[in-house]
Structure formats: structure tokens, C-alpha cells
């Protein structure tokens, strides 16, 4: 079975641009979470989606948005990019997104903002 997939693998953008990152969860998983991991730090929670509804949101500005599609895949959008948005963006899928669920992480998208 395929694991969590993310695209693109790497991305270079300039300040002020917007970016869309994509994630496909493990088959059968209905929950997708997004994390930002700055080099040398732990993953920071951005969003959790379950059954197309936002169920949790971290302390990120409104420039960050996401959505989940009927097939449970998800997109993370970031507008008006700042240099500080440079990071590894991780997607994690889980069966239900409950606190005791195991999260399976994708390989991530490395975003560089110049």
C-alpha cells in the first residue's frame, strides 16, 4: 500500500508569491494534518482536517489556508510568502485524527522563499 504522498518535493518561491502544496493520505484515512518544520526545530501544527472540515488550527496567520477534498486529499495554501515561511511542510494522515490515532507522515515539501 502506498504511504502518504506529497507534491512537489521541493519548491523555490520569492517573497510575496503564493504557493499550493498537495497531500494524498493513506488509503482509508480520513484525516489530514499539516505541519511546518523549520530547520532544527520540531514540527509546528498548522491545521487538521477531517471529512473535509477544519477541526483544528495552530497559531499561524490567515495567510495560511487549507482544504480537504472528497477523496480526502488536501491542499495547503500560503499567500504573500515571507522569508520566514521557508521550511519543510509535512502532511500527516490518520484514520480519524483522534488523539490516540497514529499519524503517518509524508516525505514533506521543502519550500525555500527568496
Amino acid at each position, binding site marked *: 500500500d502506498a504511504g502518504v504522498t506529497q507534491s512537489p518535493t521541493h519548491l523555490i518561491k520569492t517573497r510575496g508569491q503564493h504557493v499550493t502544496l498537495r497531500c494524498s493520505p493513506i488509503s482509508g484515512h480520513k484525516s489530514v*494534518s499539516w*505541519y511546518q518544520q523549520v530547520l532544527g*526545530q*520540531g*514540527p*509546528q*501544527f498548522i491545521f*487538521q482536517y*477531517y471529512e473535509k472540515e477544519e*477541526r*483544528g*488550527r*495552530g497559531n499561524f496567520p490567515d495567510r495560511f489556508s487549507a482544504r480537504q477534498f472528497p477523496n480526502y486529499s488536501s491542499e495547503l495554501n500560503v499567500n504573500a510568502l515571507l522569508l520566514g515561511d521557508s521550511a519543510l511542510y*509535512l502532511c*500527516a494522515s490518520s484514520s480519524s*485524527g483522534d*488523539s*490516540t490515532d*497514529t*499519524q*503517518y*507522515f*509524508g*516525505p*514533506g515539501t521543502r519550500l525555500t522563499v527568496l
Partner: protein
Amino acid sequence: GQQVMQIPQYQHVQEGEDFTTYCNSSTTLSNIQWYKQRPGGHPVFLIQLVKSGEVKKQKRLTFQFGEAKKNSSLHITATQTTDVGTYFCALNSGTYKYIFGTGTRLKVLA
């Protein structure tokens, strides 16, 4: 807000030595998860602890949940070069928000 402290931040050990990382929360936890992230990789789930005082073992890895459910530890016996990576604890804040610890970066010297 809820805080998760993880110590030490870095640990260099000789191959064959033991290693322990500690995770401390400011609040009582319902459960805690541990993840390992290899250099250049993504976090991989290791284990989940739920019960007060719970101890779980995976080969050379021993995970413990504190009696008060505010702290946890991961102990590796006789480290190997394959243990290299960053170990994170992670907890759910109760409102579908997940908080990862700062991580402990382990380097094993052959």
C-alpha cells in the same frame, strides 16, 4: 498554553553506550507519542503511551510514561549507528492540536 520541554537538545554517544531523552509537560496528558526523524527524513511513529506508569519496550528501546502523566522518557540500550536521528515526543492538546517537543538530536560515534 501547553508547553513541552525535551532534554537534552543534543546527545553524542559512543556506539554501545546508552541514551535517554526526557519529555516534560506543563499539564497532565491523556497520552503521549514518540517519533523518530532521521536526517533529511520525516517523522516516523515509534509508540504511544496511555496509562500512568506505563512501560513499553521495542527491542533496545524502552518507553516510560510518568505516574503523574506529565512526563515521559525514551531509553535506548547499547546504541547503534542506525539510532542516529532526532527523537520527538508529541502530545495532543485536547482540541485536535498536536504539539511536538523540541526534539533530542542523537549522534552515535562509531
